[in-house]
Each structure stands twice: as structure tokens, then as C-alpha cells.
């Protein structure tokens, strides 16, 4: 230990404090979802399950949830295919313009969401003359989700190398057989981690969604935002928020177990 004891104690105290600040607001949402008082005055005095029951019956929230799930699944499928293709192209081939391609993959998430949002909004409506709706949300989400799959797959490809595939080819396996029996099993868990994180990313997104959803379709984040400023909806919005906090733990936990290194979780965002 080269860091002196007082310094270590100071660091430990600061770490605990910072983590407290990180988790207290989220815990507060959880506690308030049982708070009988509609204005969430602190400290809560009486508790109830009424809001959870009402939220479970809120047709608006349930419809929005279903839209979000379908958007997330569709965008994830597209992002899985495209992201994996780019990862293979960049990792297994050496060609002019590789850096440009990798920049292009990151661009939709590196640019402010509002820029991507209005660019797509403008393109869908004026260039293509489309109605905004389910399909345009999926296209928009897939665009910025590609990078998550790409990051997970390319990290795995870098680690595994090509020897096993070469061995398979030397032993006479066709390209397809090699992919089925060697390559795919190697990248399977990376694909799964990518799937979970991509779905989570799509499920949460609001900025790009606002500009590509149109008036007829609501995803869950848009439903929350639209109901956020309505006082009589406050307890139900709070329950939905609390449920989302609880469910956000699942993909992180699963992806962390699948990919084995926690750092890759941060890579997509």
C-alpha cells in the first residue's frame, strides 16, 4: 500500500458519499411508489399498494409498454445483424477507410440525440414522404443501437483470434459449417450481451423517439414524459418509474455475467 492511511480513509468516505448520492434519488422513487400522499411530501407517513394496482390497470401505460417492447425487439434484430456484419468486416479484413467506418458506427450515438432526431425526422417526412409511426421509430432506434452490438462482438472477435476458424477450414469444413460450429459458439454470449444492452438502450430512449414517433404512437418513455406534468397522474408515473428502476437491474446483471467483464457494459453508451 503506497497511498497513506488518512488518504485511503478520505477516499473511502467520499466513495460511500458519492454512491449514496447516486442511489438515494432512485430509492426515493421506489419508496414514493408506496407513499399514500399524492404530492410525495417527505418524509412519507402512510404507505399503500393502491398506486401499483392502479398502474397495472392504466391502459395508456400498458399500451405504451407494449409498443416499447415491440420497438425494442425489432430494433435489436436489425442492430444485431448490421452490428455483427460491421464487426466482422472491421476485425477480419484490412481495407482502406476502416477508421471512417468505425467513426460512422459511433456517430449516431456521439452526436447529440436531438441532431440525430431532427435529421431523421426531416428525412422521413420530407425526403421519403413517410408518415411517422412504428416503423420510423424502429429505423431510428436501430441506427443508434448498431454500436452496442458492434462493440460487444468486435471485442469478442479481438480476443478469440482466427486460429480456430483456420483450423476448421484446414480440416475441410466449409465456410458455413465453420461459422455454425466454430465462430457462432465463440461469439454467442457476446451476441446475447449485445442483445440485452441494445434492447435496454432502445427501451429507454426518448430524445430521438420524440422526433420519430409522430402523434399516433407512444413508447413508454414518451408516455411518462407526457404524463409527468399532470398532478393527478403523478402516483402512476411514479410507479412506472419505480418498476423501470427495478427492471433496469436485470439486463445489467445478465450482461455482466454473460460478457464477464463489466467495462464492456459502458462501451455502448
Amino acid at each position, binding site marked *: 500500500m503506497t497511498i497513506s492511511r488518512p488518504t485511503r480513509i478520505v477516499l*473511502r468516505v467520499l466513495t460511500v458519499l458519492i454512491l449514496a448520492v447516486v442511489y438515494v434519488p432512485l430509492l426515493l*422513487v421506489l419508496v414514493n411508489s408506496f407513499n399514500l400522499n399524492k404530492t410525495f411530501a417527505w418524509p412519507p407517513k402512510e404507505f399503500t399498494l393502491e398506486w401499483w394496482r392502479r398502474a397495472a390497470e392504466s391502459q395508456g401505460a400498458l399500451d405504451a409498454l407494449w409498443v416499447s417492447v415491440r420497438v425494442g425487439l425489432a430494433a435489436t434484430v436489425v442492430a444485431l445483424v448490421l452490428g455483427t456484419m460491421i464487426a466482422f468486416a472491421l476485425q477480419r479484413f484490412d481495407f482502406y477507410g476502416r477508421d471512417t467506418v468505425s467513426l460512422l458506427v459511433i456517430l449516431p450515438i456521439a452526436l447529440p440525440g436531438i441532431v440525430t432526431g431532427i435529421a431523421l425526422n426531416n428525412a422521413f417526412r420530407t425526403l421519403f414522404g413517410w408518415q411517422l409511426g412504428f416503423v420510423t421509430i424502429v429505423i431510428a432506434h436501430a441506427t443508434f443501437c448498431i454500436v452496442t452490438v458492434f462493440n460487444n462482438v468486435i471485442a469478442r472477435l479481438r480476443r478469440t483470434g482466427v486460429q480456430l476458424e483456420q483450423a476448421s477450414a484446414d480440416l475441410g469444413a466449409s465456410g458455413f459449417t465453420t461459422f455454425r460450429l466454430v465462430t457462432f459458439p465463440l461469439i454467442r454470449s457476446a451476441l446475447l450481451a449485445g442483445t440485452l444492452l441494445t434492447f435496454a438502450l432502445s427501451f429507454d430512449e426518448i430524445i430521438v423517439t420524440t422526433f420519430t414517433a409522430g402523434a399516433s404512437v407512444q413508447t413508454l418513455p414518451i408516455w411518462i414524459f407526457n404524463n409527468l406534468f399532470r398532478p393527478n397522474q403523478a402516483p402512476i408515473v411514479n410507479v412506472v418509474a419505480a418498476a423501470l428502476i427495478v427492471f433496469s437491474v436485470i439486463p445489467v446483471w445478465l450482461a455482466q455475467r454473460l460478457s464477464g467483464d463489466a467495462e464492456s457494459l459502458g462501451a455502448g453508451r
Partner: protein
Amino acid sequence: MSTLHRHPKARLGLLLGPPMLWLGVAYLGALAALFVTALWTQNGFTGLIERQWTLDSFRTLFTVDVYRTIALRTIGVAALVTVIDALVAFPIALYMAKVARPGLRRFLLVAVLMPLWASYLVKAYAWRGMFSEGGLVSSAFEAVGLKSPGYGLTATVVTLAYLWLPYMILPIYAGLERLPDSLLEASADLGGRSLQTLRRIILPTVVPFVVAGSIFTFSLTLGDYIAVRIVGGTNQLLGNVVYDNVGSANNLPFAAAVATVPVVVMLGYLAVVRRTGAMESL
């Protein structure tokens, strides 16, 4: 398949073709079209876009006081959020990388990452609860005899700093993890005390990683308009101006012109950052 095997170029083309059509043609095309729109004008009477080349939108942006104020405010908020995140992220990253034992380190890493994947909207909403009248912040402030800041720019800065904090912790942690312990030991052996080691060894190592993290905190703040609507009261950032001009005001050329500001600021920022060599640590 066997013919493909003998033609790596064909395989590369098949692999890259569809994604490049999607990203290179559709997405880049949409971006290009947006910035071209910024150079068009809108008929104030019919609300239709006229394809005449003009710099009117940019002229409005730079000459009308409100927009200049909002642009400067946005950049100020982005800078403040970045500084706060750097100050908060450093101690926890240092603790994770150099003090915590491996098991605890793994736990802390997940603890830091978990909120990153919690919904953005829910996190902003959580801070709306914190800053609300009678909420935790106001009861804490009242307990020590102060008035709570309530919804406003302070709440916006706090919320944004909270939202982007993991983006700052992760690069700093990665940088510190790479710093060999032997360097710290050498410093101690040569008589350097903790503060000296911190100032002369740890801080210089960390700077490029802080810069790398700042790219995220800065860029994400520049484009944000949701958090400020949730906790910012009536304050506006650039994102709100863009949003209002796409929606209610329906002036896409002006919205596009405003949207170029964060992009240009970010490109300038990246150009400066490149010279510090921080790009390699991304």
C-alpha cells in the same frame, strides 16, 4: 460459399454493403439534408420551406439576444457539469482502482454502471422528486435554515451532472488502473508524501482520461432538452430552442441552424482534445 471463400473482396462487400447503405447513405444523407435545410428559408406566411440559399437562420441565431444568451448559457452549463463530474468522479475512480481489493472493485464497478442503464427519464424524474416542494432537498435545506434552490438552473446542473457521472468515472478508472503501482511506490520511496504523489504522478496520468470523459459529459449536455424541462423551471437550453422550432413553431430551417451549434462546438472541442492526445484513451 467456396467461391466466396476465394474472393475476400466479395465477402467484405457483402458484409459491409448493407450496414453502409444504412449508416453511410441513409443516416449520413439525413444529416447532410438537415444541414442543407439550415441554409434554406421558410415562408413566414404559408409555413412552407423555400429552397432558396440564405444565411437568414444563422443571422437570427447570432443577432437576436435571446438566442445568444441561450447558446452561452448552454455552453456554460455543459462546462460546469463537466467540472463537477470530473471532481466527483476522481475520488471514487481512485478508490476503485488503487485502494479497493479486487472483490470490492468488481462490486463498485457494477454499482457505478448499474445507474448508467437505468432509464434516463427515470433518473431525471427522480431528481424532480428530490427538488420538489417538500422533497428531500428542500427538507434538508430547511433543516439547516436555508431555502431550497427548487427547480431551476441549479437543479438542471445537478441533474445533468448526475446523469452523465458514470461516463466520467469509467475513463478515469480505466486510466488509473493502467497506472503501475510501482510508480506510486517509487514516489513514496523517494520521500514523496501522499499529496505530492497525487499532484506529480496521479493527476498528470489522469488528465487525458478526464478529457476523454469530458467529451461525453460536454456533448450530452449540449444536446439535452428533457432534463431542463423536467427540473429547470422555465429556463431554456439550446435543445429546447431546436425542439420548439421543430414542433410548435414549425421552422425547420431555424431548428437546423440551431442544431449546428452543438455540432460545431463539439467538433471544435474534439479538435482541441486531439492535440492533448486524449483521443487514444477513448
